[in-house]
């Protein structure tokens, strides 16, 4: 019955992993003015869309995870584990 704890453990990073990674401005040149063409509205929409993507992705994935271990696969693992290992 240690299964749930292990599973949760394997997933503990999920909250943080979808942080934007390489979305910093390419140019750090102080002479380059920050692009005035990025309206706040669009930037916010981008973040909302990204949050929604992460949420949907996890919902879809967890839909399957929550089905647990199908009986035939559990039986298979137990049967193979009980065999003598070479």
């Amino acid at each position, binding site marked *: 019955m240690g299964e*749930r704890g292990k*599973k949760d453990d394997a997933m503990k990073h999920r909250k943080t*992993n979808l942080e*934007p990674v390489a979305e910093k401005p390419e140019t750090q040149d102080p002479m380059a003015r920050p692009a005035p063409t990025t309206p706040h509205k669009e930037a916010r929409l981008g973040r909302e869309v990204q949050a929604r993507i992460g949420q949907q992705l996890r919902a879809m*994935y967890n*839909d399957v*995870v929550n089905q647990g271990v199908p009986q035939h696969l559990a039986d298979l693992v137990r049967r193979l584990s009980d065999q003598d*290992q070479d």
Partner: protein
Amino acid sequence: MKLDPAIRDQVLATVPSLRAFAISLCGNIDRADDLVQETLLRALAHIDSFEPGTNMPAWLFTILRNLFRSEYRKRRREVEDAEGRYAETLKSHPEQTGRVEFEEFRAALAKLPADQREALILVGASGFSYDDAAAICGCAVGTIKSRVNRARTRLADLLAIDSVDDFGPDRATRAVLAGGGRN
């Protein structure tokens, strides 16, 4: 000598997420379960090569991915064909999410190149670190990061297009057509 029950439990505990990953690769629940079964057979036959204390999920995901890839080369056409079916695979969905929105998301995800979809799922859904995801896919960490970013950008584009008429009746109609008209 029988397998250490602690190791066995680690294997069992990974099966649910292994299935979720397999479905995202295969786009077909029956093939996914075959792939998981083959992975478990392979893993338990070679359990000696697993180093206790290291990352069991990452080890099993690596085996599954390699099996899938070798099969993929054999059945390339069939797998490409599966893209359309991917959106159809998981018809059940969480109640809190609108059905149309969910179907739309799946359809968008199915449009991603396999490499990008795989990276996004490993990092964004399976909860692996970029390092682990890179090890699973046998590529550089930077490659995983760029695949994840490209996947997110592409998905945002695909979903943003639809947000233009988010509340229009056309949206539901289109979703029905998109769902039923794949031939």
